[in-house]
């Protein structure tokens, strides 16, 4: 009774409330701009850096940043700026594929466990606990040992080791949604079980999974980078940011730009996703109870 919303007026749309809240979050806005920039750069890479990430010019080895080469050149005379630009495609691809697999596996298992309960829930929850019990990096290393090195395998390994939180969040949300009157009303008008899951419950688990996805992207990018750093991920001459840094590691003293610029790109991307994830969580959270 503390709020006195007059029942005569339509409440503002939930979407509008959400946008309003999101817009007020400054880091969230910065993050969103950075992510849009990343996507734009990834798409426009052939326009921004038409000579590709691999064009060598052995006459210009390890040149410092200049008007011609904003980020300098590496030991093969490749333009670091061009490589960083093309590297955005890799970062984005890692993020998208990992998130897609996490969502597909985690959300479907979570929905089944939460909706059906009983032995279905016990089996799925057991699997979740099992996957969760392994340190992801160790599990990923094991998988790569089996699958062989390479970016694709790294992505698959990361996805397989990190869907568990999605299943758990979805299961909990599904269990609470299943109790809602509108789901019961759906059953009462004769909806089939599949429709109940897809049309009534699935839309309700989108928000928490969206937040979770945004917050796991940085982890996925960093783990990929770590594996690349160990030489298991992207292989030369791939412009993966961490691989470029790896390249520049030996010449840190005399050619700092080779390491620093891809590092900045990595930090900015990770921070951007974290900012957006936090902002999403804050903007979506108060609606949880309504």
């Amino acid at each position, binding site marked *: 009774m503390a709020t006195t919303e007059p*029942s*005569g007026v*339509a409440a503002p749309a939930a979407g509008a409330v959400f946008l309003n809240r999101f817009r007020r979050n400054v880091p969230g806005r910065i993050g969103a701009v950075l992510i849009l920039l990343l996507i734009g750069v990834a798409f426009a890479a052939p326009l921004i850096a038409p000579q590709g990430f691999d064009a060598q010019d052995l006459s210009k080895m390890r040149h410092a940043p200049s008007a011609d080469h904003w980020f300098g050149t590496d030991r093969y005379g490749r333009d670091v700026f061009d490589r960083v630009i093309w590297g955005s495609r890799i970062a984005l691809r890692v993020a998208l594929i990992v998130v897609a697999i996490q969502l597909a596996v985690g959300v479907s298992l979570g929905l089944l466990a939460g909706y059906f309960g009983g032995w279905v829930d016990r089996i799925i929850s057991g699997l979740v606990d099992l996957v969760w019990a392994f340190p992801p990096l160790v599990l990923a290393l094991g998988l790569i040992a089996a699958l062989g090195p390479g970016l694709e395998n790294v992505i698959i390994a990361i996805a397989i080791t990190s869907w568990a939180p999605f299943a758990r969040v979805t299961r909990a949300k599904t269990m609470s949604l299943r109790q809602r*009157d509108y789901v019961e009303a759906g*059953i*009462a*008008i*004769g909806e089939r079980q599949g429709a109940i899951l897809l049309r009534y419950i699935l839309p309700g688990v989108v928000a928490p999974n969206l937040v979770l996805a945004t917050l796991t992207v940085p982890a996925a990018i960093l783990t990929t980078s770590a594996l690349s750093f160990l030489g298991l991920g992207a292989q030369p001459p791939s412009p993966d940011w961490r691989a470029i840094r790896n390249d520049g590691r030996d010449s840190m003293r005399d050619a700092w730009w080779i390491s620093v610029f891809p590092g900045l790109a990595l930090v900015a991307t990770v921070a951007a996703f974290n900012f957006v994830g936090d902002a999403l969580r804050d903007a979506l959270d108060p609606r949880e109870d309504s």
Partner: protein
Amino acid sequence: MSALVTARDLAKHFGGGGWPRTGPVVRAIDGVSFDIPRRGALGLVGESGSGKSTTARVLLRLQEPTAGRFRFDGEDVFALRPAALRRLRARMQIIHQNPMAALHPAMSVLDQVRRPLALQGIGTRHSRTEAAIELMSQVGLSPEQGRRMPHQFSGGQRQRVEIARALITRPDFLVLDEPTSALDVSVQAQILRLLTGLRAEFGLTFLFVSHDLGVIRHMCDQVAVMYLGRIVEIAPKDSFFATPRHPYAQALLSVVPVPDPAQRTRPRSRLTGEPPSPRNPPSGCAFHPRCPMAQDICRREAPVLRPLAPGHSAACHLAEARP
């Protein structure tokens, strides 16, 4: 008149299942039986935990019953397979207590009202939309409002949407689970008036669940009082309100606040204590710890429903001894 709804010995027990077995069995309802004639209206009254909502849900198989039989127009509902049950749902519908929660938050109101027709395979897309718009105007909503989402409506309007959705397949039987408890008095009056009109027009049979005896008296022609999962009294409305037989029903009626200060001095039977938990029910008659006239037999033996007047039964060892 033949009974449209015949419920026999409904029971719903929770817990006790699973592996490992978890905790004691909670008997939410037990041995609940009643008939509702076609076009009749049975009011199910009780306090929280009495099992009145569970009874409504078990009947429509929104919760699977533990035991019992439910014949609906001759059909054995509890024996139906899923597909047949879904078809039968066109004929029995439910209105929920909280109109804020009972509508799909992300589906337009028109879509929700016409959805049951699509599920039952009735009509064409166009005729379904027509039917939904017509019914919406009949419950007091304008067609333009159909495009809107539930959160753009007030509580009373949402209840109208739910009523339209429940009636679109022209059901015979409507279960109303506290349909106006979340609404203000003036809005409640609007919805009750609407329901009365629709009941006559559509020839509906009601199972009206409420904790409000005033609403029950206004809407029903038969009353059943539940206490701790069992029916303790069932009677025609007039007989019930004139001479309630069970001491619990008497107490309930005497403490309902009446908007008439002149009645402040009426005799009352004040109950002590609170309704017991179904987890830990009292021995014998479940009401004995609060009953002003409990005797030894009440502590030992559970009373059964006995007829005391035409159509009027109560489950009390001592009911006949009093006028």
